C-alpha cells in the first residue's frame, strides 16, 4: 500500500468537509462536516505513524478524537442556545458581524 492513497483519501474527505462547512445552512450539519475534516486529519496522522512505525501519530489521533468530542459538545450547546433564541439554526441568518 502506498502512503499516497491514504493521504489522497484524507484530502478528499477534507475537501468534502470544507464544502460542507461552507455550503450547509444547518448548524448541526456544519458541525458534522467539521467532524469529517477532523477524521481526514486523523487518517493522515495514523498513516504517517504507520510509515514511521511509531505510535506518536496514533496518540495524536486519539487526542484529536477527544478534542472533537469536546468540540461537538460545546458546538451543539451553542446551536441549542441559538435555536432557543432565534427559533432557527440557519447560519445564513446570523450576520451580527455585518458591516
Amino acid at each position: 500500500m502506498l502512503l499516497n492513497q491514504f493521504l489522497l483519501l484524507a484530502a478528499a474527505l477534507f475537501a468534502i468537509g470544507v464544502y460542507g462547512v461552507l455550503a450547509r445552512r444547518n448548524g448541526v450539519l456544519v458541525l458534522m462536516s467539521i467532524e469529517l475534516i477532523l477524521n481526514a486529519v486523523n487518517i493522515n496522522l495514523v498513516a504517517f505513524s504507520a510509515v514511521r512505525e511509531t505510535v506518536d501519530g496514533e496518540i495524536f489521533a486519539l487526542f484529536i478524537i477527544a478534542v472533537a468530542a469536546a468540540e461537538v459538545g460545546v458546538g451543539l450547546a451553542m446551536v441549542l442556545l441559538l435555536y432557543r433564541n432565534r427559533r432557527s439554526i440557519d447560519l445564513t441568518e446570523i450576520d451580527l458581524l455585518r458591516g
Partner: protein
Amino acid sequence: MTELLTLAASTATGLPLGITEGGSWLLRNAWLIPFLPGLSFVGILFFGKRMPRGGSELGVAFVGLAFVLSLLTAAAWIDHRDNFEGEEVHRAVAVAVAEHGGESAEGHADEGESAEGHVPGHPSLGVHNTVTWFEMNDVAFTVGTLVDGPAVMMLVVVTLVSLLVHVYSTEYVAGDRRYTHFFAFLSLFSASMLLLVVSENTLQLLVSWELVGVCSFVLIGHWWEEKPNSDAALKAFLTNRVGDIGLIIGVAILFFTVGSALPGQFGSFSIAETNALAGTGQLSHTALVVASCCLMAAVMSKSGQFLLHTWLPDAMAGPTPVSALIHAATMVVAGVFMIARMYGVFFEGFSIGGSSINLMALIGGITTLIGACLAFVQRDIKKVLAYSTISQLGYMVMALGVGAWTAALFHLFTHAFFKACLFLGAGSAAHAVHSFDMKSDMGGLRKVMPHTYRTFVIGSIALAGLPPLAGFWSKDEIFVGTGGWGLFGGTGGNGAYTFMLVMGVTTAALTAAYMTRCVYLTFFGEFRGHGTPHESGPRIVVPLWILAGLAIVAGFGNLPKGLPLVPESLQERFGHFVEPVASYFPGISHGTPSWSLATASTLVVLSGIAVAGWYYFVKVEAASKAAGESLTELPDGLTTKYPLARMGHTFLVQKYYLDHLYTDVIAGGTKGPVAAAAYKIDQDVIDGVVNAAGENAVKAGNLVYHRFDQLVVDGIVNNSGRASSGAGGELRKIQTGKVQDYAAILFASAMVLAGVLIVIV
C-alpha cells in the same frame, strides 16, 4: 577605505582655497551678528506680550547691536583686507592641480595690477570659521561663517536697513493686531538673512534661504484675516518653492561633483572648495552648466527675475516696512548675492568670460526691461516700486551675467538704500492718505508732507540715475562692465555684451520716465483723496532722511578709476574691499570707465525725464487746469487715440498674462483637474480594483489572485454592483457578517498561500 585615502593624499597637492582660519576676533566670530536677532526673536516670542512696548524695544535693541557689531566687523575687514599676513588653507585634491590653482591665484594678482590696482599680489583671504553640525558616512557637515568682502558689505546693509525699518515700524504698525508677532518675525527675518549672508557652505545657504522665504510668507500674510493677503503669501511661498527645486538639485549636483574631485570623501558643500575647484577646471563642465542653470532657477524665483517674478508685486500686500526691508532691500537680493557667492561656478558654468551672451545676462536683461515697462501702468504706488525693484534686480543679475561682479554688488549696495527710502516714503504717504492708489487718493502731497516729498524725490533721482546720486555711479559701472560699447571707445570687460548694454540703457530711460510719473501722481497736482493728510512723525521721517542721505552719498563709495580731482586713494574703494582676490573667486577682468558712456547714459536718463515731465507737468497740468480738476492722464492720450497703443497698454495691465498662466492654468490645473483626476484614479481605479477584487486583488493584475477573487468574491457578492464600485461598495459586500463566508475566504487564502509556498520552495 583608508588605503585609498593615503593613496589619494600622496598624489594630491594642496589646492589653495583663498580662505584662512586666522583673522581678528570679530571676523572669526561673525556668527554673533545673526545670533543676536535670533535671540531677540525667541525673546519677543516668549516675553514680547508682557513687555511695555510689546517686544519692539527688544527687536530694535538687538538689531541695533547687530548693526554696531557689523560696523566693527567692517572696520576689522578693511584692516584685514590689506594687512593680513596669515596662513592660507589648502585642500588636498585627487588630481594634482598645484600649478593650475597657483596660476589662477596669481592671475588674479596681475589682473589686479593691470585692471584695478589691488595691492599687488596681496590676496584678500576670506575668514573661515566652522563647527561640525552633523556627521554622516565619515563626512562632516559643518556650519560656520565665511567672512569676506561681499559678506561684510551685506552684513552692514542688512543690519542698517533692518534697524531703520524696525524704528520706522514702531510708529507705522503701532496698535496693530499682531504688533508683537510682527516684530518677532522681523527679527527672525533679519537673523535668517544675516545667516544666509555669512553662510560658509551651500547647505547652510539652502537652510537660511528657505528660512527667509518663510519669514516673508508670514510677514506678507501678516493680516491674514483678509483672503487676498494670505493668497499673496501663498503665491510668494509657492513661487519660491518652485525655484527651490532648482536650488536643491543644483546644490546636490555641486555636492557630488566636488566630492568626485576630493579624495576619500564623497561630497562637499563648502562654498570655498566648490568655487576653487570650479576655477581649476577639473570639475566636469557639464555638471557645472547644469548646476548653474538649476541655481539660476532659484535666483529667478527669489530675486523676482522674469518668468518667476509675479509673486513680488503681490507681496506688496504685506505691511510697507516689510516691503521695504524684505521685498526691496534685502531678501530679494539674496538671489543676486547667491550668484555673487557661487561666482566661481557660474563663471565657469555660463562661461561668462569672453562670451557675448548667456542665460544669466539674458534673463537679467529681459527682466530689467519688462519690469520697467510694467511700472508704467500701475495705479498702486507700491506696485510701481515693486516693478522697479524687479527691474533693478534685473540690472544686478545682468551685471553678474556680463561679468561685472563689482558693479552688480555696488548696485545692490546703493539700490538697497534708495529703494528702501522710496518704499518707506511711499508708506509714509500712504499712511497719511490711508490708501496706496496714486490716481484716486493721492496727488499734491508735496505741500502737506514736505519731508516725505523731498526724500522721495531724492530717492527717485537716485533710482533714475542722475549724477551725482548713488544710482548713477552703480548703473554706469554696469554699463561699463558690459564691455559691449566699442562705439564709445571703451575697452576691457569680459566680453562684448552689446545687447545687454542696449537693454540697460533703454531701461535707464524708462526708469527715469516712470519715476517722474510716480512723483507727479503722488506729490503734484491737487489732492484727490479724502481727509486731510499730514506729515508723519519723527520715527518715520528720521529713517527717511537717513536713507535719503545714503542715497546721495553711497555712490561715492566706488568712484571710477581715473576720475579727475579725486585722489587715487578714494577711487574704487568699494571694489577694492568687496571684490575678493582669492582662488575661490574667478579671474574676472574689469572694463575701464569712459566719459562718453557716462555722458550718453546721463543724456538718456534726462531725455526720459524730459518726455515724461513734458507729458505730466505740461500737458496733464494744462488739461487739469482746463478741466478744473486734478487729472492723472490726458483725456485723449495715446491709448485712446491709437488701438495699437491700447492693446499694448492692456497687455501691460494684464502683466503679460503671466499671472493667468500660473494661477489659472498651471496652479488651477494642478489643483483642479489633475489632482481631481489623480484622486479619482485612486478611488475608482486602484481602490476600485481593491474593492472589486476584495482583499486578494491587492496585487491587481496578478492572475492567480485575480481569478481567485473573481470566484470567491463574486460568489459572495453575487455579481451585484460591480459596475458601481464607489468606495466601499464591493469590499463591504464581502463583509456579509456570515461566518461561512469568512471561512471561505480563510480556506481559500490559506490554500493559495500554501500553493505559492509549494511553488517557491
